[in-house]
């Protein structure tokens, strides 16, 4: 098994970061794949939580959405959405939430609502879903998204989910965005500002900087993300054999 796609590298890098977590709230889209992969590779003990009302899912196949029947079958608990949001999330039981984003800025503000003006949008995106409350109430937030100068923007067009506001996050909030994984690299946050932690194999720093809408400061000696292992790639390809989601 040689070679891998950018998307495969991205979900593998994301899944690895769930190694030391216990309870993970799974967002729709790429997070769904990354978390299902983590459960099969980096952390089989991971408790997967879905806003559809599932705690402790054991997905037997790649969930087609965050409300797939494979999530309810075999789960530790299925609850109403009220209980899920009120007791599991707002009650402080979620260690990390994995979210997607259409736009993000250096402060980790996430936009999944509109491109352009809210009242007359250029592109109407899906909206918050649970992200707005997840961003406040999860103990921390990881993001996985495709990176370009259009998605990594100086200022998001709409703050759907707050990142690190000027002056810091209120004490009663969770710690907020701590990690962003893209097809090019892995980013962390230092004092509320996004920093490049590692670049994926075969990606140069100029490419990462070009795919960023602000002037990203990068240490020339930045680390390289370890490439996917054979076991990780095999697990990815079991989950998405036809590359329906990881084109």
């Amino acid at each position, binding site marked *: 098994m040689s070679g891998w796609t950018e998307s495969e590298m991205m979900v593998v890098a994301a899944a690895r970061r769930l190694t030391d977590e216990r309870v993970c709230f799974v967002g729709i889209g790429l997070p769904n794949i990354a978390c299902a992969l983590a459960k099969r590779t980096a952390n089989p003990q991971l408790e997967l939580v879905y806003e559809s009302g599932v705690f402790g899912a054991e997905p037997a196949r790649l969930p087609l959405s965050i409300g797939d029947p494979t999530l309810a079958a075999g789960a530790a608990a299925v609850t109403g959405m*009220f209980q899920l949001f009120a007791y599991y999330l707002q009650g402080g039981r979620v260690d990390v939430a994995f979210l997607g984003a259409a736009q993000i800025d250096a402060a980790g503000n996430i936009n999944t609502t509109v491109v352009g003006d809210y009242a007359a949008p250029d592109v109407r995106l*899906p909206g918050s879903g649970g992200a707005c409350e997840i961003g406040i109430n999860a103990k921390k937030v990881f993001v996985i998204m495709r990176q370009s100068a259009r998605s990594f923007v100086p200022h998001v067009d709409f703050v759907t989910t707050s990142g690190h506001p000027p002056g810091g996050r209120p004490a009663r909030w969770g710690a907020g965005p701590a990690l962003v994984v893209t097809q090019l690299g892995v980013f962390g946050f230092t004092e509320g500002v996004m920093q490049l932690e590692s670049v994926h194999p075969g990606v140069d720093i100029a490419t990462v900087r070009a795919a960023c809408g602000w002037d990203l400061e990068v240490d020339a000696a930045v680390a390289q993300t370890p490439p996917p292992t054979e076991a990780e790639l095999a697990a990815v390809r079991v989950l998405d054999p036809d590359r329906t989601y990881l084109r």
Partner: protein
Amino acid sequence: MSKVASMHDAVAALVRDGDTVAIEGFTHLISFAAGHEIIRQRRRDLTLCRLTPDIVYDQMVAAGVARKLVFSWMGNPGVGSLHAIRRRIEHADPAPLEIEEYSHFGMVGRYTAGAAGLPFFPLRSYEGSDLPTANPRIVPVASPYGDEIVYAVPPLNPDVTIIGVQRATAAGDAQVWGLTGCQQEAAFAADRVIVVCEELVDEAVVRADPNRTLVPGLVVDAVVVVPHGCHPSFAQGYYDRDNAFYLAWDAISRDPEALAAWIDEWVYALADHAEYAAKVGEERWRELTPVSAPSGGVDYGSYA
């Protein structure tokens, strides 16, 4: 007293032009059969409420039944966009569509307040977000017991809530397993409720397992028996999500002519959902039927 009715008669009697209508079910048990009948009866000026508008509201909006959408996540889950709704919002094509937007917990809280008779629901969300600016009905309120600020959302009391369920009695006691979403809150919040069931069962079946009753007949006005009534969404243990349809909808929904042709072929040209299910075909139903995996029973005891 039996509340069993045909879908035609239930919609004719209970869904009126201008109504606020919620077809609830979070990815699970979405009553497409009811949505199609509302299209077929050419209801107009509806305010459609749902956490996730899903394909069913894309179809209803395209067919011209809706004036307004109240929602928290608007997409084709796991696939992409709802293009008919986007055309209305982005280009007023062919007409504008009013929207009122919340987050998921905000929408769940709205139904909860509506069901519980409360003037608002407080939640820890929205702080730092632009959503309260976009929707002035999301309002910060001070705790009466300290200096904390939470956000309030208003109650949502639909004129009609329609829910899909696996089984129900003729009196409307409705049982659901798998994802239960916010159907209970949405039903108790509504003035009128239509239960759409895969199977009609005897009262004894419900009474043998009362923990599984999500909505009691107390709040139900009509029971409609529609096998496969939630396709292309799913009914846990009965049929899987038809993911090929969700994927195919993207291209149909992008093209207004293809979409209109789809509605002609799959809604207007068919008398009811039984014809739709026959048109989907036995082979597809076989493919979508999961392997049986019954729950272990529990013992309630007899205390006679």
